[in-house]
């Protein structure tokens, strides 16, 4: 978790508010010679739900991994004024450990290790609590992944590919949980999604990331009507 203090500095992107919960300024990330992120400036406000959409390989996961400190930026700044928890692509549970242990390990950085609030949020996890996480269905695993992230009591959750490999009915159930969390606890959400329709439906603001650059940004409802976005990400979109 990066926590770099914001210093007074003229930012090239004047649209980032000073009180943003999470912001990146001209973030550049390289893998060897390849440039994965090429000057990304974006922000998530307090209690806001923001979508990040874009094609495969645009750098969406790289951005999230950089926000969580897994990748290190070659240039640019990250300012995070709160606790960030990352729900990674593909769930990334600890398959050999039980559901309960997976949840408890989410609190490794500190705070209560009692997983019962997660059982209130996802009641079906309660009866699965002593099962190995690796044996769960995709939807159940996604709940564990979100629960594990929530155990850190984050101010902002970065969720990578919420819908990946899940049946539409499961996706909408989990998406509803995210929206409820955001409404009730004020947890901000940065949602990375292949399923642009879903992402634009439940968020208020969105960014389109293409080739490591933000190509479009604005209110989700406006982007959903944008012809170019519609053509590239919504036209004939079939959720996987």
């Amino acid at each position, binding site marked *: 978790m990066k926590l770099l203090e914001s210093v007074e500095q003229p930012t090239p992107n004047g649209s980032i508010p000073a009180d943003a919960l999470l912001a990146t300024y001209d973030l550049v990330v390289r893998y060897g010679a390849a440039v994965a992120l090429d000057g990304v400036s974006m922000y998530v406000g307090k209690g806001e739900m923001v979508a990040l959409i874009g094609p495969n390989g645009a750098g969406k996961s790289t951005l999230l991994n950089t926000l969580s400190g*897994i990748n290190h930026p070659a240039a640019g700044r990250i300012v995070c004024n709160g606790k960030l928890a990352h729900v*990674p692509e593909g769930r990334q*549970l*600890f*398959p050999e450990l039980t559901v309960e242990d997976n949840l*408890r*390990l989410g609190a490794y*950085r500190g705070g209560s*290790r009692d997983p019962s609030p997660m059982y209130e949020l996802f009641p079906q996890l309660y009866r699965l609590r002593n099962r190995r996480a690796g044996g769960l269905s995709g939807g159940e695993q996604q709940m564990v992944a979100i629960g594990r992230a929530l155990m850190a009591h984050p101010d902002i959750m970065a969720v990578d590919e919420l819908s990946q490999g899940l049946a539409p009915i499961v996706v909408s159930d989990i998406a509803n949980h995210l929206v409820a969390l955001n409404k009730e606890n004020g947890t901000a959400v940065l949602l990375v999604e292949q399923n642009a329709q879903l992402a634009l439906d439940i968020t208020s603001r969105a960014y389109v990331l293409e080739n490591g650059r933000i190509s479009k940004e604005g209110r989700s409802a406006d982007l959903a009507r944008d012809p170019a976005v519609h053509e590239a990400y919504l036209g004939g979109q079939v959720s996987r």
Partner: protein
Amino acid sequence: MTAFVEYLLTGVARGLVFALLAMGFVFIYRVTRVVNFAQGAFAVFGGFITYSLLRAGIPQGVSELLAVLAASLIGLIFGVITIAGDIPLLASLIITIGLSILSEAILMLIWGTTPITYSGLTGHDFVILGAFIQRQYLIVVVASLVLFALIALAFGRTYFGKAMTACASNPYAAKLSGINVKRMGLVAFMLGGALGGAAGVLITPLSPMTYDADVSLAITGFAAAIVGGLTSPGLAVVGGLVFGLAEQFVAGYWSPSNETAVALALLIILLLWQARRMRLEGLE
């Protein structure tokens, strides 16, 4: 029959010592993906340090415990040298071989080339089913079982143990949860050092320790660890027992000079079996 019982019991005891070495391999490999070929050196240090402490008049029990702690500290130092910094895995592997050679040199400089031994905890030897068994074998069995139980408790019940398992299970997710995987790797090296040290402390009263015993100890421990694919502590114990029993029965019924050859032959068979099993399971 008497001979059989003797080979069986001594084989189990020596097998448990190999299992301790094997578990050291397993815990270090699981967290760091490094096969620590210096694992045998921890045992040699354990034996020699106990020897010196006992000669300095430190009471039995205390000497052994201190030697295990010292081996654990050596494990930490080896760990820092092996995995600190962004060293490629292959380089780490070579470093452990280097550390094994370096250890031999250090051991030779400090203790010389004469084999050493010391008597285990004093007490009567005993007779089981007509077989005459040295008391030390019983101590080895009890001590190893206590260590295995402690490890099972630490990994099965404690939060820290679970976090360590998490590092082995999914290092990326462990990092996202805030677990310092590198530091856990160093803890694994300390644990490996302690387990190796305990093996050396326990086996020195049974067969004299030499400064260059680390390679043969490491090979046997590695072979036992391979039974569980280097990742299963439970199967590593099984592997240790297989090697301990094979060694004692070969030495007893055939010839002690064939011990190593049989151990190596078993290792090759196990490696081939592992490779086949991995292919069948579609792993790697």
